[in-house]
């Protein structure tokens, strides 16, 4: 683990221990609903608490859970990996809630919990505003409500939602994000509006986990072809826990198809690869390179044709690596300052201390 680079950890996950933890942040009506209706937790199938992937074995507490306190983050990640800053991306199942009013209430409570229980307890922490996309107007309001607190540095949605993120119904959200200088973070996981594959429900968690790779491709295809990236050139989109090695092949295919049928989407006036290189960033845990071919990482970096797109993240407490090997092997030494810090500073305006609006 390289030190002394002032690393910025772009993806760590505080875990809500139970619905009761959010109760103090709910109003009386929703607190009552939670109690009366027996809503004890919102843990989702994207991250089953006991599976090996969700919490690394040596990061679990006596009860088998983890990532429930700032102290754990400090001793397990911030300290060992030498991070100057870390961005909290809460993955509690608020996106799965079908009642939009309930979703908005729970999501607000989640964001307030993150602020009070995490941001207020360590100055190195920043966070994402979790968005209740069940109600676009409420999602915009949530951005407006929290954007004045500059420790919120991006907004967060899941890779698998109701509809592809490029669709115009989401554009008011992107207007608000651009207004406040906030990137859109898209994290692995599903709201379970659709099966994890376009060919139906998977049998195994392994299949389900790897299927996030397809969701990220679909989201980028949508953000490009709907004209969303073109419409919002100042919007940065950060793919979190997406894996990386799939990206070149995806762009080669989309670019070729675009050349063939661009008359269908005449507003896309630059190649998908250019748009994505300018506006899309990816975290590198996992990277998904082959384990037996040390040269492959350099080949993939060549295929990406950019050193500016990748952001370091530990993905704590998810199990992506053992010990302190938080940087995927194979990166050239010369790229580490960008990977560990500079690219994050270039992506997250608020980490540079800039004012939000341009």
């Amino acid at each position, binding site marked *: 683990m390289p030190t002394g680079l002032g690393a910025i950890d772009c993806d760590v996950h505080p875990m809500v221990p139970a619905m009761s933890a959010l109760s103090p942040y709910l109003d009386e009506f929703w607190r009552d609903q939670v109690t009366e209706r027996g809503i004890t937790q919102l843990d989702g199938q994207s991250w089953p608490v006991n*599976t*090996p992937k969700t919490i690394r074995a040596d990061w679990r507490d006596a009860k088998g859970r983890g990532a429930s306190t700032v102290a754990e983050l400090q001793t397990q990640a911030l300290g060992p990996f030498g991070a100057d800053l870390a961005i909290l991306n809460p993955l509690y199942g608020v996106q799965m809630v079908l009642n939009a009013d309930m979703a908005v209430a729970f999501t607000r409570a989640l964001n307030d919990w993150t602020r009070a229980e995490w941001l207020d307890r360590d100055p190195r922490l920043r966070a994402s505003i979790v968005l209740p996309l069940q109600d676009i107007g409420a999602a915009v309001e949530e951005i407006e409500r929290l954007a004045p607190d500059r420790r919120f540095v991006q907004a967060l949605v899941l890779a*698998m939602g109701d*509809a*592809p*993120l490029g*669709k115009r119904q989401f554009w008011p959200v992107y207007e608000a994000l651009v207004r406040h200088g906030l990137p859109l973070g898209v994290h692995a996981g*599903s709201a379970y*509006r*659709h*099966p994890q*594959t*376009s*060919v*139906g*429900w*998977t*049998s*195994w*968690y*392994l*299949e389900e*986990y*790897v*299927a996030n*790779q397809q*969701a990220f491709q*679909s*989201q980028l295809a*949508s953000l490009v*072809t*709907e004209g969303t990236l073109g419409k919002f050139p100042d919007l940065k989109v950060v793919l979190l826990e997406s*894996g990386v*090695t*799939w990206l*070149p*092949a*995806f762009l*080669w*295919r*989309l670019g*070729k*198809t*675009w*050349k*063939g*049928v661009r*008359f*269908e*989407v005449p507003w896309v006036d630059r*190649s998908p*690869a250019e748009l994505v290189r300018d506006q899309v960033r990816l975290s590198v845990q*996992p990277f*998904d*390179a*082959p*384990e037996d071919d040390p040269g*492959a990482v350099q080949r993939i970096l*060549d295929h990406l*044709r950019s050193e500016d797109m990748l952001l370091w993240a530990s993905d704590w407490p998810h199990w992506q690596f053992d010990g302190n090997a938080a940087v995927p092997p194979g990166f050239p030494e010369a790229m580490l300052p960008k990977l560990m810090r500079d690219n994050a500073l270039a992506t997250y305006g608020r980490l540079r201390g800039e004012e939000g609006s341009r």
Partner: protein
Amino acid sequence: MNVIQAPPPRADARPGRPAAATLGLVDVDIHPRAHSHADFKPWLSERWWRYAQEYGPRARHGFTGGQPPFPKAQPLACRRDAWPPGGGTPASDLGFLRSHHLDAHGIDIGVLNPLQPSGQGDRNNGFSAALCHAVNEWQLETWLRPEPRLRGSVVVPYEDAAASAAEIRQRAGDPNFCQVLMMSRTAEPAGNPRYWPIYEAAAEAGLPVAFHAFGYSGWAMTNTGWPSFYIEEVSEHATSCQNQVTSLVVEGVFERLPTLKVVLIECGFAWLPSVAWRLDRHWRHLKGEVPHLRRAPSEYIRDHIWVSTQPMEEPEVGRHLRDVMGWIGWDRILFATDYPHWDFDDPRAAVPGTLPEEVRRDIYGGNARRVYGF
């Protein structure tokens, strides 16, 4: 294992055939089309013929009459010059297919992959089985017996595995058929045990199973909902095939059937290494869930999966494609034109001339001869 017998060396490359195709030029993706449903009538019972007239094919989407949810970029997604001068739709006329494609490009062997209307993926399993059977008889009668350069695919009603297995067993041993054909968008992931009888029958018959990009699963075309554009649908052919490879591997299909060969046609291929790497990496952490896998996922992929060239991904820097082809394995890549569709690959220009000659030779013909036993 197939015995490989190379044809005698030929000094006379026919017009159109690339010089590097010294093991012959095999096109693994040609789409014959019926003039109309009536072409299938001789092999349909009175009941299903009447059903076809009154209710018609019903895919797992809302449109009827062959109208796709995402309108194609051209009528029937075909080359404008592929409409036979004598009338009819592209690739519906053997004479014109011969002159426009087989002769013009020097195709030695062409594999037919009939698409809609073929009965595949129909919501009515009984109709699906009846129409698929008729399509296979139609292939024999209309294409395969009159033209020795063509090979057929056993079109199966894949949502009914038992009926599919019966259709495969009926065709086993008939040299006119070289593979079993499924569409890439099945109603459940392809590795699901409900489909295993298909793979068992195919392995028993010594036929590879091809997945051709297309079909309608009934689910949204992405795992995050319905996209808007045809360009997205084309992109999603790759993602659905990625899911199918994952499912076939993780469900243990290749562990169960060590001789099964799977050919991905028109699915692209540059994504395959990344899928294999990702599966390996996360399998190491989730092995406990899938003890039926005795090898790393990438090993099953390397041993059991072949890919076709068209549409070949196009990197901004051409040589990057060579990295990917090498990762997949030069012996796994089969040439395809996709005739008569708009995104047809001309054999003279499609395979990069920068590849070593023996690699081009194998892509044009040698690899297909090995996998199909031609």
